[in-house]
């Protein structure tokens, strides 16, 4: 495991255990990361059960589990299967997708703030979705399609504009910021052009919400995640090499530019798919990988832990959003925005002190 000396003093470098099978396969296991991952998975599951049980028709966690296992009443079956389970599953996948996308972006830009939020991917998806809402009055599926298209085009544009004999982290970030500013102008234009009904729908979409998500949102998202998540996880090793800088990675046998293109493409598509399902939920992509890294204390992208962290974060945020104000159910994006904003300020201060941004 590569450990940069300034990040972890020699005394704190832990031994990483390896599991070897008689067949010659060996897997490295970092005990702390394994425990942290397990805890995060349990946390996400617990949050999911609580979230399914809360609402106008309340159920105890025991009832929820029983219903999930097929032992519920007809009413409980209906509430769980048709209303709340798809919403929770969408939240799980959206959280995991945003977090993994964020981890890839942050590693490639080598900057904790280089998340898709900052690079204009969310704004690109928003422009795509709003175009469908405002100009074509399209339905939910068309809006989702517009979001994926918008996000993908934005990602491509940022990459091409930042390209200059290779793409370097800080130019990518700044290019993203510039593109985001242009796209924000387009968003504002679309909102002023809309009538009040469309404008309200647009602002609601822009805030990011899980309200009314059903199985039709879940299956496309699952398909995208099933293809993209394993692909990204498979590239975890070269991604870790990239964090040491292009030259070092190249010397270690990584095809730097190709790895970068594959990973960025997958990450953009993953984030765009998540955004299409739930709107541009801010700060999950930024904070989940950072929190996962702090929890596991292991260097590198921490893709698995990030995914679990993202899923848990989004579920908890959704629970908070629906239960904080009784009459007004806030969309989940408001909670992640407020909490994420505070977290971001803290991150800016600490990371600056550590000299990492």
């Amino acid at each position: 495991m590569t450990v940069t000396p300034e990040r972890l003093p020699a005394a704190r470098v832990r031994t990483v255990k390896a599991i070897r099978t008689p067949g010659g396969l060996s897997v490295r296991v970092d005990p702390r990361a394994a425990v942290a991952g397990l805890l995060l998975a349990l946390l996400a599951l617990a949050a999911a059960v609580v979230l399914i049980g809360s609402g106008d028709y309340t159920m105890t966690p025991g009832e929820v589990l029983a219903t999930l296992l097929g032992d519920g009443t007809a009413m409980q079956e209906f509430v769980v299967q048709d209303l709340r389970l798809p919403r929770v599953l969408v939240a799980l996948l959206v959280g995991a997708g945003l977090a993994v996308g964020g981890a890839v972006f942050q590693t490639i830009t080598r900057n904790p703030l280089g998340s898709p939020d900052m690079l204009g991917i969310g704004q690109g998806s928003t422009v795509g979705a709003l175009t469908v809402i405002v100009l074509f009055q399209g339905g939910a599926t068309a809006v989702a399609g517009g979001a994926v298209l918008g996000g993908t085009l934005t990602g491509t544009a940022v990459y091409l504009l930042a390209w200059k004999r290779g793409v370097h982290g800080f130019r990518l970030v700044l290019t993203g910021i510039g593109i985001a500013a242009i796209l924000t102008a387009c968003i504002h234009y679309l909102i002023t052009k809309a009538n009040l009904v469309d404008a309200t729908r647009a602002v609601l979409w822009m805030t990011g919400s899980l309200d009314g998500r059903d199985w039709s949102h879940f299956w496309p998202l699952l398909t995208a995640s099933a293809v993209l998540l394993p692909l990204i996880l498979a590239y975890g090793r070269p991604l870790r090499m990239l964090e040491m800088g292009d030259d070092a990675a190249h010397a270690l046998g990584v095809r730097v530019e190709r790895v970068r293109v594959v990973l960025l493409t997958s990450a953009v598509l993953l984030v765009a798919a998540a955004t299409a399902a739930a709107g541009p939920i801010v700060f999950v992509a930024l904070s989940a990988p950072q929190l996962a890294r702090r929890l596991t204390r292991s260097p590198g992208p921490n893709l698995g832990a990030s995914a679990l962290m993202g899923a848990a974060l989004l579920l908890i945020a959704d629970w908070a959003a629906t239960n904080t104000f009784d009459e007004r159910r806030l969309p989940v994006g408001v909670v992640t925005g407020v909490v994420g904003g505070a977290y971001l300020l803290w991150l800016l201060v600490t990371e600056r002190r550590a000299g990492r941004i």
Partner: protein
Amino acid sequence: MLIDSPPEQSAEPSAAEQPRKRHSVRAAGLVAALAVLLVVCAASIVVGAKPVPLGDVWHGLFQNSGTGTDVLIADVRVPRTLLGLLAGVALGLSGAVMQALTRNPLAEPGLMGVNAGAAAAVVTATGFLGVTSLTGYVWFAFAGAAAVSVLVYVLGGGRSATPVRLALAGTAATAALYGYVNAVQLLDAAALDRLRFWTVGSLAGAELATVRQVAPFLAVGVVLALLVARPLNAMEMGDDTARALGAHLNRTRVLAMLSVTLLCGGATAACGPIVFVGLMVPYLVRAVTGPDMRWILPYAAVLSPVLLLVSDIVGRVVARPSELQVGIVTALIGGPVFLHLVRRKRMAQL
């Protein structure tokens, strides 16, 4: 005068005469820029959704007799042009001061979240406190602009900030604040309807009363900006040299930030957040005038309203019969300029 050189009589320009020559070129350029500004102001009064013959414009300006055209000119086009003029001066100067203060070519009030801070404060005032008049919420705009500009400046690392760090801090603050702005609009549909036009940045609907209300703030901001020009010049050479040259570092920083806050907060309160004007104009001006703030400031003050008014005119014309808000036009022009800046060979600090 840049350098007090003794008058010399020689056929070829001597080394001492070079600065003087450049000096007069720059002065001539400034006069030309002023002339352009006058033309643009005139165009802003004449061009619009409803074309007005020149004779009628004259009539409306000086002998307002209450006809439809006269009212259009006196109560719609003239206030709009005046507001564009003031806001342009304010945005250009605040951008120039901020870039010098942070020694960072990407420092721009809009990019650093100052506009977003003002916007968030105004949204709070209108959404929760029921403040609807400009006189009421201009104070909120100032408070928001001041708080966020200081916050981003500190978070970005003050004078040791790299362009990336500062831009990131500003973007982060902007993202968080606009999240809040969206949330407020979502909870209150009436606020959304009122604010969705304001949050874009627009000169449409300007009134003379608005101009009168923000003018004093902007005037103080302009005076402060001019006052700090010389110490900012000294500070370009680094803190130690500046101190040796007799500049008061902290006083200069406080005055400069105050000036940026007044200028940017006032402009934002009056027209909504308008981005990139404060980035583009000082950057282009610097290429012409060199690094002397005593030239950059007047140039920026003249050319920024040119950009803003031209953007406004373009916005009126391209989307007839409706309009494209000026904030959208400046972002669409300014974004590519920003990208060009980023793509340059070296992101040199000032």
